[in-house]
Every structure is written in structure tokens, then in C-alpha cells.
């Protein structure tokens, strides 16, 4: 299939993009890597009147050391993210999740920021961003603002981005020395996550000093598993303790039934996968 016709502009700067998007209003759409958008356009499930291409903005690409955090440009591709040495050192969870996104070809074009802005409940990176307390840097008609991940994901395919807003970068606090794991559950390699669990653990003297856990596809937005984190904090790094903590994975979750899985099945999966994710992350 061929997309419906649209106007196209290749932004020369972020300001340029914001101006073009603001002018287009609800009919405008950002084109980042296009790996989610293009199939929707081809199936004519979306028909924006104006596409604003960020592909020419080199300043939105790359991973930078920002002191106690990393700053990941929104247009950095999944492939670049998963190979980046800074990411591997300070936020390996992002690399682990990025590796599971799509396939090689898709990761060559799909972008970190694009995945977050798309906010697919089955997307793997939103949960990771939530677990890591990432902060989105957004430029809009009224200027620059920071939106924490906990406020960014608003609803099903909906973020705090308004018309005219461009996600330019993501600030990810460093978790140097933590160990992490992204547990993705899907039947086939090409399928989206039925449920995913992002886990980061800091161990100390045989116990778990701190933990961050967030769930993919256990609600319309990613869910931070605060109950699990609380139970893990200070717990011994044993299989039993982790299993007990993982049993709280459903606190705050409100899984949906969709074409992929029932809410009941997701309810079964979340504690199991949380246990596995934490055990893998914590080397238990």
C-alpha cells in the first residue's frame, strides 16, 4: 500500500520543526526514524497532512556524558544506542532493551526518542525510561521544558507532548555499577512484547541494596513496580526473597485484554517475568 498524500518538510533546526508542527496543529506529525509511522501511513491508519522530518538534525543524535547523567539525543537510533559505550557503562538496561526492539533493519532507522514519543504500551523503551527515572527534554512553541518519565506517558499511545512539541533528548541518571536485565516475553521474534520487565539492581554484601523495576504492557502506559522495589530493598539476594518480592508485581498494574493476550494471562506473566528479570539482573 501507498500512503495518502501529505506535505513534507525537512527541518533545518529544532526551532524550524517546532514552527512547522505548530502551524500544522493536529494535522502535523513528526517523522523520526519512521519505523512505526511508515507502516501506519501505508495501511492508511494515519493520514497526517504534514510530516516534519527530523532526520537532518545531527544535533539530535548521539549519547553525551552529562555529569551524573547521560543525555541521549532523541534521533539516536536503536542500533547506535545499543552499541554506545557510555550506555553500556552507565545505563546498560537501555542497551539490553534496545537490542530487543524490532529487527536489525528497524534498529538501523528507528530512534530512541521516536519509540518513547510513540508510547506504544507494547514498546520496550518506555518501561526502561520509567525504571531509570529518565527525564524528557521537550522543545515546544512555549520554549524548553523537562518532563519526567513518570509524567510523560499519559495514556494509550499518548504522551505529554502537545502539537508543536518536539522531544529532543532524554536525560538518564547514571546507574553506574548496577546490574540490569530486560526480560521480554513474546512468542515469536517479530512479535511485540506481551509483557516486559525492566529491572536494575544494586547489590551490596549479598543483599539487594536498591532496585528499580518497571513493567511493559501491564497497562495503557508503562508501570513502575514500586511494591517490588520496596520489597527488594534490603532483601537478601536469594531466589526465595526475589520470588516473594516479584509477587507484588501486580500492584499498580492494570493489564488489558487485546488481540495478543488476555489480562488474566498478563496477570500470570508479570510476577513470573519480574522474578526472572530481577534474578537475572541481580545474578541470583
Amino acid at each position, binding site marked *: 500500500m501507498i500512503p*495518502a*498524500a501529505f506535505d513534507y518538510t525537512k527541518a533545518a533546526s529544532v526551532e524550524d520543526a517546532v514552527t512547522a508542527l505548530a502551524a500544522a496543529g493536529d494535522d502535523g506529525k513528526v517523522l523520526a526514524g519512521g519505523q512505526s509511522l511508515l507502516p501506519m501511513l501505508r*495501511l492508511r491508519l494515519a493520514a497526517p497532512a504534514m510530516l516534519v522530518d527530523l532526520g537532518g538534525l545531527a544535533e539530535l543524535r548521539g549519547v553525551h556524558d552529562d555529569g551524573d547523567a547521560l543525555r541521549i539525543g532523541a534521533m539516536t537510533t536503536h542500533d547506535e544506542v545499543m552499541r554506545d559505550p557510555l550506555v553500556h557503562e552507565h545505563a546498560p538496561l537501555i542497551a539490553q532493551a534496545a537490542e530487543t526492539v524490532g529487527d536489525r533493519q528497524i534498529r538501523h532507522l528507528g530512534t530512541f526518542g521516536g519509540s518513547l514519543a510513540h508510547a506504544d504500551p507494547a514498546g520496550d523503551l518506555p518501561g526502561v525510561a520509567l525504571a531509570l527515572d529518565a527525564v524528557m527534554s521537550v522543545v515546544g512553541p512555549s520554549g524548553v521544558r523537562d518532563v519526567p518519565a513518570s509524567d510523560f506517558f499519559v495514556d494509550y499511545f499518548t504522551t505529554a507532548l502537545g502539537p508543536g512539541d518536539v522531544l529532543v533528548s532524554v536525560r538518564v541518571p547514571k546507574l553506574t555499577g548496577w546490574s540490569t536485565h530486560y526480560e521480554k*516475553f513474546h512468542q*515469536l521474534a517479530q512479535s511485540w512484547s506481551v509483557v516486559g520487565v525492566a529491572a536494575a539492581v544494586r547489590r551490596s554484601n549479598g543483599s539487594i541494596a536498591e532496585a528499580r523495576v518497571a513493567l511493559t504492557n501491564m497497562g495503557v502506559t508503562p508501570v513502575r513496580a514500586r511494591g517490588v522495589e520496596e520489597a527488594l530493598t534490603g532483601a537478601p539476594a536469594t531466589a526465595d526473597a526475589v520470588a516473594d518480592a516479584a509477587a507484588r508485581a501486580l500492584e499498580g498494574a492494570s493489564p488489558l485484554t487485546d488481540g495478543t493476550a488476555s489480562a488474566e494471562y498478563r496477570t500470570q506473566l508479570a510476577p513470573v517475568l519480574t522474578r526472572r528479570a530481577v534474578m537475572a539482573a541481580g545474578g541470583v
Partner: protein
Amino acid sequence: MTVTEQRPSGEVGRDRRRKEDARLITGRTSWTDNLSLPGMLHLAILRSPMAHARITGIDVTAARGAPGVVDVFTGPDIADLQGAMPCIWPVTEDTVLPVYPPLALDEVRHAGEPVAVVAARDRASALDALELIEVGYEPLPVVLDMEAALADGAPLVHEAAGTNRCYTWILDSAQAGTGGDVARAEAEAEVVVRRRFIQQRLIPAFMEPRSTVVDPTGDQITMWSSTQVPHVLRILLSLGTGMPEHKIRVIAPDVGGGFGGKLEVTPEEFIAFAAARRLHKPVKFTESRSEAMLSAHHGRDQVQDITVTARRDGTVTGMSAKLLANMGGYLGIIAPGIPILGAFMYGGIYKFPAYRFECTGVFTTTTKTDAYRGAGRPEATFALERIMDELAAELDMDPLELRRRNWIDSSEFPFTTAAGLTYDSGDYAAATARATELFGYDALRQEQAARRASGDPVQLGIGVSTYTEMCGLAPSRVLGQLRYAAGGWESAAVRVLPTGKVEVVTGTSPHGQGHETAWSQIVADQLGVGFDDVEVLHGDTRTSHKGLDTYGSRSLAVGGIALVNACQRVVEKALPVAAHLLEADPADLEFAEGAFRVKGAPGAATKTMADCAFAVFQSHDLPDGVESTLDADATYDPENFSYPHGTHLCAVEVDTETGMVKVRSYVAVDDVGRVINPLIVEGQVHGGVAQGIAQALFEEARYDEDGNLTTGTFVEYTIPSSADLPDIVTDRTETPAPGHPLGAKGVGEAGTIASTPAVVNAVVDALRPMGVTDVRMPCTPERVWSTIVAARAAGGEGR
């Protein structure tokens, strides 16, 4: 002139690399969609979003005025031109054959049915204009479930038929005189096992979306189409539209897969044919993948109620199968016959003394069904091999042992089954022995026991499947008895060119099977020419005017013999020429090792086919009565089916916490008779096994309650990638097919037939201690998990 010496058995059996590959690996392939003709218009088809509705009006005014649009038309606009879609296999005298217009006239009976067509200068404009067409629909009740469709007072898919029952077809061995009475067997049985199996609906999902180009300029109308059946298509275009057959030329260029999915003669082809005639311009229609999912026919979709009766020692005394088969909203070209192709296979490799089969075809408001790789035989083999495992469990017997006790011994061939088929050959024990050896059956059973004992959350399951199938469709006489409208012969022509090169024209129509390679190997041996000296021509009714195309593992088993016969006629024609050249009596000559020579005179002068061909070309001094040609053709109609068989074994790991099934190892040992090209045979098995595993674990076409297909793209209809499939270990045993000059049996469908039950048997085997006795396909993680939960709730744990 070069003389290529070939030993007679030199090419057949060699793992020749394929001739076809050169163009396919370099992007120089001729797919139909690559074709562009001067002035060609692009068609786009508006499809019904409703599963069942009366069309109250179609307004095409805005679409007509859209940029680039040349024409917009509806069914009534081309009513006198479009003809009707044919079904050529009414399996009973009273089979309901509904009117099937290519472009809907006043009612739609499945989501995706074509309702209007735009012809435009480019494809994008045609697609844009579709959005401007307004269609009024008056919804009618949808009919989705087969049992509900047959209930009294059910809404009707075809009002005029007065019923949703398409046909009921029965085979009873007691009545046919081919075996005993299943009712009596049941009354006398020590053990009776009953199961209902669901053959979920599948989508063939050939990789190349269908495309057709029609050029109405010139004396003949030419249609290029990505079809398995160019010859059948030409005949049915003629019969369906009234256009004389000799005024139609059909070309199947390179075709990207079929698996039965392209043996249909399609509404889209008829619509394009009508559009070209209406517009007097070449037209092209290429479907999108989403359209292919909706409108290309689906496969399987049967409900199977199976009863097997046995003695306590494991001897099976009777088998009965009662089926509902979903036809969809209309009848595909051979749809009613698909379950009937399975009807003869519910006994598999076993000596079942009594057998009864009954199938009712049912109309529903869904996409039509028809052949999908194996066509009826995978369904039969699945039901049989699944219930054999259930019987083994009931008898507390090893599933392999139960099979041993019932299978036909190699000394018992030819063996006539209760279904009335006469199996010519086979060695089931040999194939099974080889498979268990490669698989490490005993070691895996030990590991299974250990995991069960330790309560491992990941359980191991072992699945067994044996099969035989009737290949080589088909003896025309049998097809006639089954009310099939065509024959089952195949044809071949061999032309020896003046320089000794050979053109072969085959009536088969390959789309991935490698006929250009395998046929060249056969001809090379038969005529003593080089492999590279043979060109195989196919898929164009102008060069290959006669044929019945490619499906049902028939091409080699039937077309291969036609080819051998044609070659032998060439040799017969060359004999007097060679004798003349050698100044010998024809009776004293033999054709051996690629040349004519005087019998019993090694080292004497020889004449090759090339020598004879050039002499015939010159014809300067041929003996009287010798024709100036070495060309010959032959048509072959088989007397019997061929019966490949095999044993497949599968080990799966089932994660009981998530329901995830992982295939750990897979062994396929097949006996396909004598092999022309082992490389191609192995490839066919790999692909077939992959498709069978996919039915077991991954694929299902699903509809929502309104009759909308919810698996309309590859996002929802999940066909496996390389990352999802196991390493497949293959091997062969070889018992040649008697009566077949090549000894070949056919291999195209074998893997698909055997693998699905092997995998599901393995899944059930893993979970049987939990009380699980069946898992419905596909065995998705959620389905496996919920089956475990249900079994536990029923108190199965620890049973």
C-alpha cells in the same frame, strides 16, 4: 560438435545446484508485478468492510473525477463481461454451487469481497480514488460458527440455497465393501477413544503477493499472473467468461511461492480480464499483503470428531471421522474436495479393519477456503496421529509401540486399506528405526522422566508422527469417480535442436520447486546430453499448450513420467537415424551411456543424440520414412497414486509457568522413493516441516464477532522467522515406487503433513502428567498456560 558423455545414471540422484538461482539471486527475476506495458492502467479494488450485507447503492461520482482516474466500475457495470467464478469439484450430486460473481453484484458474503474497481494512470491515484467511493450497505446477519450455521433457523449465507450445508460426503468401508463396520467395531471394542480436534484456519501466505497483468491488444488477450495453474486458468477464463480458449494466452512468469494458495482462479484475475476488455488497455492489479490476507483463499478450518476403537493389546479395530469443513462465503475452485483428499488417509500407515468418514461442507460469511499445502491430508494425519497418542496413553503403552503393533509390514505390500486405496510400497519400520536413532529417543525419554520426577518447571515432551500420503494427483479415472471436473494427467514435450541442445516443454508450473533443474537432470540421463544443454520451458500457454500444472506433489510423480516417456520416444525416433549413420541395422543398436552403438561391441563407433539431431536437421539422405524431427511429446495418466511415507519425531520444552513451547529437536526421516535431486528434496522437507510447525505453534486466521479478519497483516498473522524455528535434522530411507519409471513418489507436501501432529503430540506429552489430554492449535503460550490451569483445576495434577 561437442559430445557430452554421460552415464545413464549420471545426473539423476546428483545434488545439482539449481538453474533457477542465477536470476533469483541477482534480482533479474520476472515477477508479474515487474511488468510494465505502454499505456498500462493500474487497478485498485474497493473491498467490503462488512462480512455480510446487501449493497444498497454505490456512488462513484467523486472517484471518477479524481486525478489520474480513467474509469471506475462496479459489478453491475461489468455484469455481462465478468463471468462467474468456477468451482470444478462438486463432490456430490447435490453439492450447492452458489453464484460467485468476481465483483459483487448486490450482496457481499465475506469481509474483503470486491465491490468496486478504480482504473488509474498510477497505483497511488487508484488507491486515493477508492476513498472517494461511497457504498451503502444494509447489514445482514453474519454466520461464523459451523455448528451454528447448520442449526435450524440459522441465518443463510446464500438465501437462494435455503441452507448453509454445501454437501455431505460419506465413505463407509462396510458399504463400500473395503472393510468392516465401525459401529460393530465400537460395540465389540475393549477401548474406545473419542476426541474433537480443531484444524484452525490458516493463510497460505506465499511471499509474493498475487499480481496480474492483462494485455488486450493483439489477437490473443494475454494474461500474466502469479499463479500455480496457468493452464487451468486459461480454460476457466474461457469457460467462465465465454471468451474462446484459443483467444487467451496465459503466462505464469516467475512465481513467488504458492503452497496451494495460488492454485485458485481468482476474482481479481477475472476482474482484471474484464477491465482490460472494457478499457481496451493493458491493466495491472497487484494486491497488497493486507488484501492477500483477506481475499486469497484460506486453508484448513475443519472440526474433526474422531473415534478410534481397539483391543487392550493395542490392536485398532476401527476408525471413524466426522468432519465439518468450512467453505467460507463462496466455493473455491476445488474447495469441496479438499477434505475428501484427506478422506482416504485417516488410516495412515495402519491396518485398520473398519473405517467410516463423513464430511459436511458448510458456508459461513468468511473468506473462502481451499487447498493449502497438503490439502486434506495434513488434517487427516493430524487427527490420526493425535488420537493414536491418546490411545497409547489410554493403554499406557509407548506411542511408538502402539504404532508398531498396527502398521503395515513391508512384506504386506501391495496393501489395500479399508478406505479402498492400494498402497504400493513402503517400509515404515525402517524409517522409524532411523528416526529414533537420529533422535536419541531413549535418552530423551530418560531426561523426560528425570524432569518429571524433579518437578522441573520446564517439562520435556516427545512427539511421534508417522504418515503416508497419496501423492501424484491423480489418476483421471479416480478423479472422475470423485466427480472432479478435470483429469489428472500431465504432459511433456522434448525438442532436440539441430545443434543437439534440448528444449523441454512441461505442463507443470513450478513456483520454487526447481523443475528447471530436476527436469534437466532427467532429460540429461534419458538422452545422453549435458545438464546445461537442456532448457526447460514452462508456464506459458503459447509454448506449453497442454498441462495441468503444479499442486498435490504431482509434478515429478506424474509430469516426470510424461517427460521420461517423451524422451523415450525421442530415442525411438533417433534410432533409425543413428543406424543409418552407423550403417547398421536398427535392431542391432542399443542406446546406452548417452550414445547409440552396436550391441555387444564396446569400443565400436557411436552416434550421439546431437549427431542424430544434426543429421535430421540436414535431412540430406535420411532413409525413407524417417521424419525430419526428433521432437516428441507424451502425456501420462497415472494408474495409482504414489505413497511416500515417513516418521517424524519432535522434542519440545514447555515452560509451565508461561506456557511457552520451544522446539528443542526435530528429526524427519522420509521415504519419497527414488530421489532426482537430494538437495531439492531436503529443501522441500525443511520448508514443509517449518509450515507444519507453524500450524502447531504459531499461525491462526481469526475473525471477530462481526466477521472481520483480525489477523490481516503479518503483525497479527505470525509466520515464523529464522529465530523461531529449530534446526531440522533430515534423512531418507528409499523404497522405490514400483510402476514408476523413476521410482519417485513426490515430496512437496510431506513435511507439512507429518510435522504438525509430531509437535502437538510433543506438547501434550510434556503436560500429560498434569492431566492435559489436548492443546488446541496453535499452541500459543497463553493457550498452553490456560490448558494447564484448566487441567489443574480439574484435579489432574499428580494423577
